[in-house]
């Protein structure tokens, strides 16, 4: 929020034009009801992830042998699990892992993908050919299969390993989009001018081209964020993600879904929580894409 409050004055008219476009986009986004609904939901889960103690009525990790496997009732609106823990509290406290891992992985993937996309799109030639073939090969495997293979080979699925795996799998996907945008930009006069001025390639890529391909980068980031949540949850569900001591929606489902008949509440409520979060993220991502690609 502080970034909005303190705009630095800029002398170049081109810059202010870019800023006008940015504030116009922001205005369009804030006016859209889907964005507002989506952002409110994401904000709610973020709040729960940061202050689980403030919202949960019970201690989410406290076993209570006097209230095991209770169906939803007045004192436990979502029921209790086989250890007597309050599921409502566990659902409220269960967003932490996903909201930590997914954005970190997306950030990593977008960062590396942008660098790779700039390099392959600007340098072209052999670098581009080799990278394109490698990317094709990597992308012929579904994300979840690659992740299972790497987790098994490394023998470890801690938080940062999962971030690294998903980030690295996102890298080629992001780089493809960025590369396409860079190819279009590289033909334009300002890039040629920079070349003729004798600017070094890193400078041209970073200072000249990058600001002009930020739109696809932003779009990729928001879209990938949805996929990252999808991937983190799926990996945790099949038992190849983080197995935390703290409550986690997908881990709860992994633990209880075989008991779905008759203990449906132990699985349904965490599943609905995931559903609500991913839909919110994707509604925002979709609007961002619409606004940036118009």
């Amino acid at each position: 929020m502080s970034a909005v409050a303190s705009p630095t004055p800029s002398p170049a008219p081109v810059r202010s034009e870019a800023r006008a476009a940015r504030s116009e986009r922001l205005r369009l986004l804030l006016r859209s009801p889907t964005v507002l609904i989506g952002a409110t939901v994401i904000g709610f889960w973020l709040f729960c992830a940061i202050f689980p103690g403030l919202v949960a009525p019970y201690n989410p990790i406290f076993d209570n042998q006097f209230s095991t496997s209770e169906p939803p009732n007045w004192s436990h609106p979502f029921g209790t699990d086989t250890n007597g823990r309050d599921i409502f509290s566990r659902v409220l406290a269960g967003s932490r892992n996903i909201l930590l891992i997914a954005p970190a992985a997306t950030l990593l993937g977008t960062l590396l993908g942008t660098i790779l996309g700039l390099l392959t799109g600007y340098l072209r030639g052999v670098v581009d050919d080799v990278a394109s073939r490698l990317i094709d090969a990597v992308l012929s495997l579904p994300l979840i299969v690659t992740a299972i293979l790497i987790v098994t080979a490394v023998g470890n699925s801690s938080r940062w390993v999962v971030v690294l795996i998903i980030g690295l799998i996102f890298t080629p996907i992001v780089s493809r989009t960025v590369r396409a945008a860079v190819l279009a930009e590289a033909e334009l006069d300002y890039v040629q001018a920079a070349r003729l001025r004798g600017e070094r390639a890193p400078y041209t890529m970073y200072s000249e081209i990058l600001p002009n391909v930020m739109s696809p980068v932003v779009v990729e980031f928001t879209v990938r964020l949805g996929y990252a949540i999808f991937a983190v949850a799926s990996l945790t569900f099949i038992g190849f993600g983080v197995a935390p001591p703290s409550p986690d929606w997908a881990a709860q489902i992994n633990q209880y879904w075989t008991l779905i008949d008759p203990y449906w509440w132990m699985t349904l409520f965490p599943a609905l929580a995931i559903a609500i979060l991913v839909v919110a993220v994707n509604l925002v991502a979709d609007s961002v894409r619409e606004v940036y690609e118009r």
Partner: protein
Amino acid sequence: MTRFLLKRLGLAVITLFLLSVIVFAVSTVLPGNVGRAVLGPFATQESVDALNEQLGANRSIFVQYTDWAGGLLHGDLGTSLTKQVPAWDLLRPALSNSFKLAFVAFIICVPLSILGGVIAGLRYGRPTDKGITIAGISFAAMPEFVTGIILILVFAIWLGWLPVTAQWEEGANVLTQFKYLLLPALTLTLVLFGYIARITRASMIEALDSDYARTAYLKGLPSSVVVRKHVLRNALLPTIAVIAVQVGYLVGGLVVVEVLFNYQGIGLLIYEAARQKDLPLLTAGVLVVGIVYLVVTLIADILYAVLNPRIRFGTAE
């Protein structure tokens, strides 16, 4: 056309080679010590050495790769560690089960999503369009296990219409098998619906706005004829390309769906191989998944070229 085919085929072979290198590197080089990775930290050094000896993992990486890749070329995918049978003997039935599930998912999903996309495109900007689009985005974003669990809960447990798992008893007839496959197929359908419907919708809108559609309307053709004969033909072409890309996704989705429904397909096999640290079987399974994807996209590209006159007559690459 021939040039296009040859070029496309050549690229597929190169990609396949790189894929084998990557899969090999991840499964053999990444663990550092394969025997230790399989047996765990508490195994004795002797048993680790013995396993490495048995797997040939004590040789140089280059020798190991050429040996493994040479075997692949002869159809030898390696031997499962836990079951001690050739990996292919386990993969073949699993693969055919997965194809069965994917087939059922496709025959439900493709017509449904195209219909959804066409309706949304025809009702562009109206509530029907918004509803279909938002439903599509929402379902596409949801992990399969979430949709799967909700479907199981509603249709298998509360309504009792369909079975909870996908594994039918031996000798069940086609209709019974279909009934068992319906829930997992529906789960996959819901995820795919959004993508296919979205592209169909976008190309419908573009085609409806085109000059040839306007001409057709202006010369007095009824709109059903315009849509059927002029718009749909052009709008469906991009859809084929998207459907092919979704096959890749489908295989990934199969892992989770097969685990959830306990269905003996390639996804469940890969999952179990990983759980049991059966690295040779896992490696073979992953490679087969990659090959299936490459073959399907190759076929789709060719199909697209055959259907698209611009490529068929060689005016475009």
